Every structure is written in structure tokens, then in C-alpha cells.
């Protein structure tokens, strides 16, 4: 048969592949599946996914979650409108003042870097970016070439 006749080749390959019998599954597969099913069945409901929880527990969980969400929202509203809210906000701000300081340092560093980069001629910048891109592409190409050489060497060897 000529492989340059695609239709005949397709039919021949199809017949050939479909004539191949299935492989035998490993002897241990059945035991593994049964052992895993037993292990899962023996897990308590709270260690299984939500879909396997008893329906009464699922309903209770839903109600408790809704109540907890309502409690948190109403608590926040009450807290925000109370006289102690300002005092609390001040305390929190003082405790986390390091975040504000870090932000100021970052902003200052960014401004200095911008001034520094602005002083470099743009041609140098484009040159540096181009060099990095070429090095990166070369690294990828060398890696791919090495992979292919080693793979084909192994295949030819085997």
C-alpha cells in the first residue's frame, strides 16, 4: 500500500489499530480500587467533601453560616457607628504604623529610581533590554537543543 494515498492509508491504519486487543490491567488494580473505596467509606462525614455530608448537617451548616455572616455584618455596622470607633481606629493605625512607613520608603525608592533611570540615555536602555532578550532566547535555544540532542541520542542508543 502506498502511504501517499491518504484515504487508503487511513483505512489501513484504522483496521490495523482496531484489530489490536486490549492490554490486561495490572493484577493489583482491582485491589487498589477496592482498598481506596473502603478507606473513603470509613472516613467520618466531616473529613469528606460537602456533597457527602448528611442533609441535616448540610442544612445546619447553611443556617449557622448565614447567622455568622449576619452577626459579623451587623457587628461591623454597630462598631462603625459607636463613639469608641474613632478610638479603636486610632489604636489600630498606631499598631500598624509600620505598614505606612514601609509604603513611604517604597514610594521614595521608586521616585529615586525613576530619576536615575531618566538620567540614562534611552539608547543604553534599549540596548540593555535587547541584550537581556537575546541572552534569554539563547538560553532557551541551548536548553531545547540540548534536550533534543540528549533525547535523540537516548532513543538511537536504545
Amino acid at each position, binding site marked *: *500500500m*502506498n*502511504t*501517499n494515498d*491518504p484515504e487508503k*492509508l*487511513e483505512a*489501513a*491504519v*484504522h*483496521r*490495523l*489499530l*482496531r*484489530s*489490536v*486487543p*486490549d*492490554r*490486561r*490491567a*495490572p*493484577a*493489583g*488494580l*482491582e*485491589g*487498589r*480500587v*477496592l*482498598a*481506596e*473505596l*473502603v478507606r*473513603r*467509606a*470509613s472516613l467520618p462525614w466531616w473529613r469528606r467533601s460537602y456533597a457527602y455530608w448528611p442533609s441535616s448537617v448540610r442544612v445546619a451548616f447553611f443556617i449557622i453560616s448565614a447567622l455568622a455572616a449576619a452577626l459579623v455584618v451587623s457587628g461591623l455596622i454597630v462598631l462603625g457607628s459607636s463613639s469608641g470607633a474613632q478610638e479603636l481606629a486610632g489604636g489600630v493605625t498606631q499598631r500598624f504604623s509600620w505598614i505606612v512607613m514601609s509604603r513611604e520608603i517604597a514610594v521614595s525608592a521608586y521616585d529615586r529610581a525613576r530619576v536615575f533611570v531618566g538620567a540614562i540615555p534611552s539608547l543604553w536602555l534599549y540596548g540593555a533590554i535587547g541584550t537581556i532578550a537575546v541572552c534569554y532566547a539563547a538560553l532557551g535555544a541551548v536548553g*531545547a537543543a540540548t*534536550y*533534543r540532542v540528549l533525547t*535523540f541520542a537516548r532513543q538511537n542508543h*536504545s
Partner: protein
Amino acid sequence: MNDEPPVQTQPSGLGPPADFTTFMRKYQDMVFTTSARLVRNDAQAEDISQEVFIKAHEHFEMLSKSPTAGGWLKTVATNLSLNHLQRYRNRWRFFSELGGGSDAGGDDAPEVEFAAPDTFFEGIDADERRVWVDEALSKLPDHQRVPLILYHFEDIPYDEIARRLGVSLAKVKTDILRARAALAKILARPGASLEALSG
């Protein structure tokens, strides 16, 4: 392989019903073969087969009455195997397609004579034929082998294969065409013997 009696590991009353064990024995070869052909690794195929049967157990009430249970299992095995391959897809795609010219059986490949399968394996028993074809398939690059298997073994049309693999329809058709030519070439290689194919 699994000529020995199956291992019964579950204590009575806790494990799956006996029907499920019978069901699994009926389909385990098909499920394992489907996965092994796609992932080309027996240990990974066994893991995937285990996952397929655990999913089957979750739907056993429906599957035990369904005349298309085999099809369901095959689809799940195919999908899980493709998901497994998908994790590594970008990597192997990059490396395998970088030098497309090295693929065996390209459009410019020389003509080869491929004996018709009816006569090609004459006198060879089914198991030996299976080993021979599996070895030939394993010599194909993944981007040719996977669509070829999906088309010829799983009867999935070209456009569906393209969608599932996330590649263009034209690429799927070209890859399958080249895979067929390469397979014919491997099987028709002068002096090719089972030993040569099994490396």
C-alpha cells in the same frame, strides 16, 4: 498479568457491592488500555484507572443499569488521561515542535509500501501484535500519537480533537496524517523485528 484471583481487601459490609467488583473486572482492561495508550506510562495509567473506577463507584447506581457504561468509562478515562497530559503539554509542545523537520513521515517523506493489516500480521498472535503496535505507537512524538489515538481508537472527530487539545483543526489533521505515515514507515521498516521495535 491479572490471571490470578483478585485481591479482596474490604471487610464485609464496609466495601463496595459484589456487583461493582464484577463490573470492574468486566471493564478494567479497556480502561487501563485507554489510559496507557495515551499517557504511555503504566504506573500513571494505573493511577488514572483507579480514579476512573472511583468515579464509577460514585455513579454506580446509574452505570449498573446503563447499556452505555463502557462508553462512559472510556470517556472518563480519556478525559482524565488528557488532563494528565495537559499538565505537561506546554513543555512537550515547545520541545517537540521546535524542530518539526525531524518528525518521521512528513509530507515530503519518501513513499513506503505498507502491507495491508490483514496480511501484515498474518501468523502473529493477538498479544504479539498488540505489543508490536504499542511499540510502534510509542515511537511517535506525543503531538502525533495523541490525536492519532483519539481519532482511531476513541472515534473522536477532528474538530473535537482540536478543541480538546487546544490546537487548530489544520494542525490536528496534519499531525494525524503524519502519524499514519510514520506508523506505516515504522511497521514497514525493512528487517523490522519485534526485538528491533521493542528496543
